[in-house]
């Protein structure tokens, strides 16, 4: 392989040097750092997307990257999600490891064809591994309307060959983005925009290089009375509910943060169910056809005998995400819903 065009300035952008300086980082900064480190580590890694270069992306996650790595490695694309995702696939064929940014993950929809039919099937078609990551902001609650608020996991959860990651905190986000980039399979990486800059989520991260392996859930809270299976933003609402349940109801709620949705960490789910015998699944995504169904079926297959209560869910209602605060708050699952559902299950 010939050399990769190198950057024009060697000054690291400030927002990827916080860990170096021992400072706490936000969720967004953690992802920036992870991405930046992988680009330093591996010249095959490069970025494509709309406005990722000079502007640094709609959320400024790649701010300064193009100065540092050069415009060849941080490519501002035409508005063509299918085109540049397909191009990423072609580059991956040639041994590169592209990271595609969707300005908002909602705009992954035009790339649905190339992702499901071409990218996900590449290895299976004997056309080689497909090491690429498609990342971008997801999720509601920011009053941005139906096309800047979607969770896209269920558009892709049904496609063998893909992996899907959805972190809930800076440590995991950094470790997972790095693992995703090093993975030889195509990974869809969802970043809840409500977490991006949330000050209370800031964490001081390890100085040394680390990854969080794909496909492994994390116990966000131990408990014996009830398991909440969740991910992303809902981990925090669940933790909030769990604290209340402990205080007010004396309930010990276990919270499983899936982190990876595909492959699903079935073993972790089953182990927790075998411990608590009661399961609540919480996802921000809409209800019908949400991931709760698959989880319920896996539990039926592997741990039915342990169940003392029905597997229930708290989710968004079956609706696009509305703009008005009153409507959006109504559509999205709230901490109060989790509380209610958990109490119902505990009493069942």
């Amino acid at each position, binding site marked *: 392989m010939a050399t990769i065009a190198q950057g024009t300035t060697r000054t690291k952008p400030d927002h990827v040097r916080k860990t170096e300086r021992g400072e706490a980082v936000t969720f967004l900064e953690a992802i920036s750092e992870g991405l930046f480190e992988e680009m330093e580590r591996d010249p095959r890694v490069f970025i494509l997307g709309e406005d990722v270069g000079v502007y640094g992306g709609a959320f400024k996650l790649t701010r300064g990257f193009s100065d540092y790595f050069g415009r060849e490695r941080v490519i501002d694309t035409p508005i063509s999600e299918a085109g540049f995702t397909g191009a990423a696939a072609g580059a991956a064929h040639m041994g590169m490891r592209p990271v595609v940014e969707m300005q908002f993950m909602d705009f992954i929809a035009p790339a649905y064809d190339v992702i499901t039919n071409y990218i996900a099937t590449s290895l299976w078609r004997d056309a080689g591994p497909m090491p690429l990551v498609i990342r971008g902001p997801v999720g509601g609650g920011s009053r941005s*309307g139906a096309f800047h608020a979607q969770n896209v996991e269920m558009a892709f959860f049904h496609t063998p060959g893909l992996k899907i990651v959805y972190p809930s905190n800076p440590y995991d986000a950094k470790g997972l983005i790095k693992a995703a980039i090093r993975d030889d399979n195509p990974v869809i990486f969802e970043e809840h925009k409500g977490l991006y800059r949330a000050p209370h989520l800031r964490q001081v991260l390890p100085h040394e290089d680390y990854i969080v392996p794909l496909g492994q859930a994390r116990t966000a809270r131990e408990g014996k009375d009830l398991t909440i299976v969740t991910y992303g933003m809902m981990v925090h609402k669940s933790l909030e509910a769990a604290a209340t349940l402990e205080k007010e109801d004396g309930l010990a709620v276990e919270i499983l943060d899936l982190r990876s949705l595909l492959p699903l960490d079935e073993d972790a789910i089953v182990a927790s169910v075998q411990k608590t015998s009661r399961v609540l699944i919480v996802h921000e995504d809409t209800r019908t056809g949400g991931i709760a169904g698959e989880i319920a079926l896996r539990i039926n297959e592997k741990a039915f005998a342990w169940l003392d209560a029905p597997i229930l869910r708290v989710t968004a209602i079956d609706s696009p995400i509305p703009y008005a605060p009153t409507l959006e708050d109504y559509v999205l699952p709230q901490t109060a819903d989790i509380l209610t559902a958990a109490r119902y299950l505990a009493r069942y």
Partner: protein
Amino acid sequence: MAKRTVAPDSELVAGLTRRQLQEIYYYLALARAAEERLEILFRQGHVHGGLYRSLGQEGESVACAYALRPRTDGTGDLIAPLIRNTGAIFVMGGTPLEYFRQYLARGAGPSRGRETNIHFTDFARGIIGPVSPLGTMMEVLAGAMLACRMRGEDRVGMIWCGDGQTSTGAWHEGINFAAVQRCPVVVVIEANRWAFSTPTALQTRAKQFVDKAVGYGIAGERVDGNDVIATYEAARRAVDRARAGEGPTLLEAETYRLRGHAQHDAQDYVPADELEQAQARDPVELFRKRLLAAAWATSAELAAVHGRVAREVEQAAQQAVADPYPEAEEACAGIYTDVEIRPPWTRLEAPDPARA
């Protein structure tokens, strides 16, 4: 230019009368004033989502729309506007009150608080509102006009597409469909040099957008979008062609986006001199000067227009601010025509999944 005395309703230029020329000015002023007022509301925290300005592009938006035949009974021409077409929406009969209510997510707004910015539809006045994914509306408008053509209605559809949008597959499939089916549509490319922070050179290697017309086998024309009269004339030709059954025209309107992509964009990627030059070619200012120079309007008349605009905008803004958000429970309505979406079981009076 020599001053002439003419009858108030005779055609002065481009087939436009004094009243019409001043009406165009009214829409230009209205669009600008409404957006400026909205910016204030934004800073006051009344607008939740993104705020998009059409500053510098009001000319092409209003001039093109003015070439259409608006109606209020659902039989007129149709438009598919975008975020920078406040002016066109007003030309078709949209009102500042609707505009503010929509941006402020009010329950009485045209999408009842469901959707953002100018994403609203009003078939009576011929407005088909967009969704965010770019390109889709090109497909949709092609099909809407196909239906009109199938039924022998002589309606025309006009769509505005940013230069960036021309890169989308949806746009390509839509305009190609319109071309093959000879749908009566006018495709205005708002060539404003930028797509968010991406300059045209990174969007396409074409020298000009009008060069795409021949690849679709349709008529193409390029015009200075900041010249209101020239743009109106070009749009008029395109509309006439469409109405005569000659199919789509691709009309490239050269213009400039004087603000950042949205309110949150400081546009620091824009070269300072480029911005300065563009500011000197403000279409509203150019048109104002031309109106006065040609004596198509007096200063007093224009001042009256601004007075009217200010009143209308202020009244609408205050009304919209006073209006409430929609009721939370309305969220369950209108997802299907006939399938009920129930409230979550956790919110039932006696929470019970079996009853949800």
